């Protein structure tokens, strides 16, 4: 049994989390969140994969048992676009923090303490 592809997803998750925890810059932090998020895409696509599978597109192919799971692909596809806009919103927050404190370091963002 082959677990390496799953380990890749786990590694992306942990390495993204490590980046977030040790981040010294909000832009870097948002990018690390993207890495962390991509681990879910990798895992979803892996769960739906079949050895020797084909794309679940039947425009020029007959529907057959070789096509991979379209459900996990649908989940991934919507989240890729949504993830970009959420990252944009976080970037806007980082921009305003930089305007107020003159720094992008999360450690300097005392203003957020209230």
């Amino acid at each position, binding site marked *: *049994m*082959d*677990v*390496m*592809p*799953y*380990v890749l*997803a*786990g590694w992306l*998750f*942990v390495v993204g*989390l*490590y980046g977030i*925890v*040790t981040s*010294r810059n909000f832009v870097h932090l948002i990018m690390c969140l993207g890495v962390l998020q991509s681990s879910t895409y990798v895992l979803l696509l*892996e*769960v*739906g*994969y*079949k*050895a*020797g*599978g084909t*794309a*679940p*597109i*039947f*425009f020029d192919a007959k*529907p*057959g*048992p070789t*096509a*991979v*799971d*379209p*459900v*996990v*692909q*649908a989940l991934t*596809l*919507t*989240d*890729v*676009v*949504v993830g*970009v*806009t*959420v990252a*944009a*919103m976080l*970037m*806007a*927050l980082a*921009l*305003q923090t930089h*305007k107020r404190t003159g720094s992008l370091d999360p*450690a300097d963002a005392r203003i957020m303490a209230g």
Partner: protein
Amino acid sequence: MKARTRLALFAIPVVGVAALLLWSFAGLPSFGHYRGPYGNEINAQAVPRRHTTNAVAAVNFDYRGFDTIGEEFILFAAVMGVSALLRLQRQEHKEESPLEHARAHASTEMADSVAVVCMGLVTPFVLLGLYIVVHGHLTPGGGFQGGVILASAFLMVYLAGRYITFRQLSPKGLLDAGEGSGAGGFVLVGFVGMLAGAAFLENVLPLGQSGKVFSAGTLPVINLSVGFEVGAGLLLVMWEFLEQALMVRS
């Protein structure tokens, strides 16, 4: 908190999380041996029952259309968040006019070759984006992907060094309206199902012939409205950030 303390506090739970992840992966079906019935079922049903040759689109906009409304409203809320966060602050002011600002910054011109390539790419990008949107139920693509391509077509105008043209081509009011009507259109299609006496978002329009552009019932309509929303939403995000970078001064 010091960086080292933070790392130490992180180290202990992360080892636990990694162990739990590995343990759960060991319980997953072996890679490449898909077990679940749902994917196979949808692959078998999408063409005969929904006349949709793209099974992924059938999941997104038909079988689980309700989830996609949720996803779309996350996008909607995020774009509104960007607009709200990047509004003009009390101590800030805008440049008098974009034209004057551009004249004052005329030194930041770019190579003509870049401008020519970028302007030349605008029309192909618009066409490609529209093509991807309207063929979403047939081949890979759809409103989400096509919308992104449409937004990048407009961004090409900016990359060509024509910020003023970019602003004129995408007036903010129109983008707001496009984003709102895109999101609203999806919900309206859902109500069409209810008006026809079926469930919310049920595919009640004529299904047509598989493989044709006018087929798959409500799918092309939803793809169009999603394409509008994603395209306008991303453009709005770019619009706000570019204005922050080029127009707003404190």
